[in-house]
């Protein structure tokens, strides 16, 4: 079963795969939530790209467009009290955990109303309230950190688990395997999620990783692994459910390889010449996570066109407000330069 799904995913096509995950079994409310959440991320990222173009967002800005099904699907399996940590392609994760698009966008524009008061930027945002632990800029560094969050869940017996995301570019960092070893050795409750978008910056997986199945990178530590089509949100939920249950039941870590794709460059300044336009447009037209769900919702008669248009309109409104807020908020007070270096003892 897993092998079948893998081959479908790696073909880059969602056609037929959706048969494995019909909308039946999902409540209309949940389906609407999935559609809306993915759309919020898509529209947010498009807007962020636009604001970057206008010079309102600076520095590095890594967009999540194309990968929405991964985090939206996995968040459906998360519970309050779980922790989530990722690297720098993090806007989608924040929005999926329920962080306010206004605060996220205002952080991108470097304003006082941003989640980090404008001092973190695109790659460094956090929300203890939502269990989102960043937002980390060094490739692979979030993996030991997420393992530590798992350690804390176990130590405090709070019942939570950690969803620790990493890219296909991070899987060759040594600290990832240091973490796998400790997580397996101590049965830590961590779901490691490789967001395999096929390129670590400009280097394809094939050119960076020795041949083999990334989902089996934990095999020698006894960490079970599974590849999932990360372009179809229903398949993500169905495919990852077992992994999350395994971890929640105290059986130690699990490794998921979510096959996905980013439409944009690595960051805003990446012209993405390392792949063909045909490759990008083929995936966009055949496997787009939002289009796939939309088609399924319409075909299955869950919602009609008007209902989805209404959602589109609402989402556009939310993002428009976030952009307005982010542009109209004040920059941090100069005195903020010196705050938050240390906690007052």
């Amino acid at each position, binding site marked *: 079963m897993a092998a079948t799904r893998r081959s479908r995913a790696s073909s880059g096509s969602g056609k037929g795969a959706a048969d494995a995950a019909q909308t039946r079994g999902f409540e209309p409310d949940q389906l609407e939530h999935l559609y809306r959440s993915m759309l919020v991320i898509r529209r947010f990222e*498009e*807007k962020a*790209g*636009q604001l*970057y*173009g*206008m*010079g309102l967002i600076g*520095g*590095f800005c890594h967009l999540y467009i194309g990968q929405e099904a991964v985090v939206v699907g996995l968040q459906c399996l998360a519970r309050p009290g779980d*922790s989530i940590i990722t690297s720098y392609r993090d806007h989608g994760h924040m929005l999926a955990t329920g962080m306010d698009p206004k605060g996220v966008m205002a952080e991108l524009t470097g304003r006082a109303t941003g*989640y*980090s*008061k*404008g*001092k*973190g930027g695109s790659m*460094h945002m*956090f*929300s203890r309230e939502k269990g989102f*632990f*960043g937002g980390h*800029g*060094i490739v692979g*560094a979030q993996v*030991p*950190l*997420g*393992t*530590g*969050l798992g*350690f*804390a869940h176990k*130590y*405090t017996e709070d019942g939570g688990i950690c969803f620790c995301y990493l890219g296909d570019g991070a899987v060759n960092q*040594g*600290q990832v395997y*240091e973490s796998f*070893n*400790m997580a397996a*050795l101590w049965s830590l409750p961590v779901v490691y999620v490789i967001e395999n978008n096929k390129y670590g910056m400009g280097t394809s997986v094939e050119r960076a990783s020795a041949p083999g199945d990334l989902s089996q990178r934990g095999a020698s530590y006894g960490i079970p692994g599974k590849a999932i089509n990360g372009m179809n949100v229903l398949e993500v939920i169905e495919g990852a459910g077992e992994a999350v249950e395994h971890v929640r039941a105290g059986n130690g870590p699990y490794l998921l390889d979510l096959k996905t794709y980013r*439409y944009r*460059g690595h960051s*805003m*300044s990446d*012209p993405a010449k390392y792949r063909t336009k045909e490759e990008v447009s083929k995936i966009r037209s055949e496997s787009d996570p939002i289009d796939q769900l939309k088609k399924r919702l319409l075909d299955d008669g869950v919602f009609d066109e008007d209902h989805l248009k209404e959602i589109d309109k609402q989402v556009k409104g939310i993002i428009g407000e976030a952009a307005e807020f982010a*542009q109209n908020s*004040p*920059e*941090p*007070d*100069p*005195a903020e*330069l*010196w705050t*938050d*270096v*240390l*906690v007052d*003892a």
Partner: protein
Amino acid sequence: MTTQILMPALSPTMEEGTLARWLKQEGDTVAAGDVLAEIETDKATMEFEAVDEGTLGKILVAAGTEGVKVNQPIGILLDEGEDESALDAAVQEAETASGSGGGGGGGNGSGPAAASDSGTAAPASAATPAPRAPDKSREGAPEDAPEDAPEEVYDSTKRQTVREALRDAMAEEMRADPAVFVMGEEVAQYEGAYKITQGLLAEFGDKRVVDTPITEMGFAGLGVGAAFARLKPIVEFMTFNFSMQAIDQIINSAAKTLYMAGGQMGCPIVFRGPNGAAARVAAQHSQCYASWYAHVPGLKVIAPWSAADAKGLLKAAIRDPNPVVFLEHEILYGQTFDVPDVEDFVLPIGKAKVERRGTDVTLVAFSRMVSHCLEAAETLAGEGIEAEVINLRTLRPLDTATILASVRRTNRVVTVEEGWPFAGIGAEIGQLCMEEAFDWLDAPVTRVTGKDVPMPYAANLEKLALPQPDQVVEAVRGVCYRSQA
């Protein structure tokens, strides 16, 4: 409503670019995500995608135009159902905008000009000087602290090695707070490579005394993650030499996250272990990391000398809500000192101790070099020179008040450290004296440091590489303008 299409910034440094090619023509329908044009930046040719949908009503900047400023209107997008009249008005508005100085950006008040050139709060703008630093690295003791505040005197003391004091500090804090745990290589069953964690496994069990694999980056990062989740890890490095495997986690994750999170995400963690040169273990195992870690805002750095320092400061470090680097010294582990025999003996972080009073010269040192300074002071006393010896105890934040008060009395300073001279702790203290006590100095601040070479193995060369008490004596004679007695 019409939408202006503005020349985008497509890299962090782009100010203008070439509009290489339009991929949509006037009259074409545009959907969000469609590539509108190709733009050459200072680095590459990039595709410029539409965010809004509509019809491309007018191209304002022709293909092939060079030097198009960021945010200059390059086209007009018409909404569904809009006609020519809307277009005319929009074109007029856009032309006004681009005519108003190009680099100034769109005149509609929503461009970056409005955001960053207005001078309202941009920290980088010349018009708004940055506020003066409340210097975090040098605010160990308040400036108005009484100059000669006496050390607290304890009626009852007990003889203890530094090793025992460190263990007792951890044990007491672990008893007091279930969130405190210790992890590292050989800390549990082996009871510590240097026996610092002796007895802890028996008392606290393997949940709280955790043997790790040899995996410094991994367990340092794991500890930081656990601290984000509000546990209070004590991470032992078998020696600080191995912390280089983990230094990214210490600096990029532990030290910076609070700031990057706008104060949301504290990291109460202690990284501890022996630092500096032991004996005959050569270059890779004999290095002082004091100036490396003391360089970093967001860390506190402690380097105890005596057993009392070790006990009182390690307890303070464990309680501190910030990441603390705690630099011990292998050669001191077995040395015995008086430790106050009181319940809950805690010393303040950021406060130095005057170990010996003197009037002629100030010796500033930390960790093992305090012993060298005290030995040198004895010798110097025989020559009629009374040296004051300051044990820094904490390197960041540095207790500048104690140093400066002493310098203003003795007018001469010699700093002593085991580390290399370049950009070292002594260099920092020299600069401090120049900035804050220049008029009190009767001689240039002089440094005694480790030699600027990797640590050699041969016994005679190792001795030459490390500061020795006689070199301290010699340096003091120099600043006192005395020839050898």
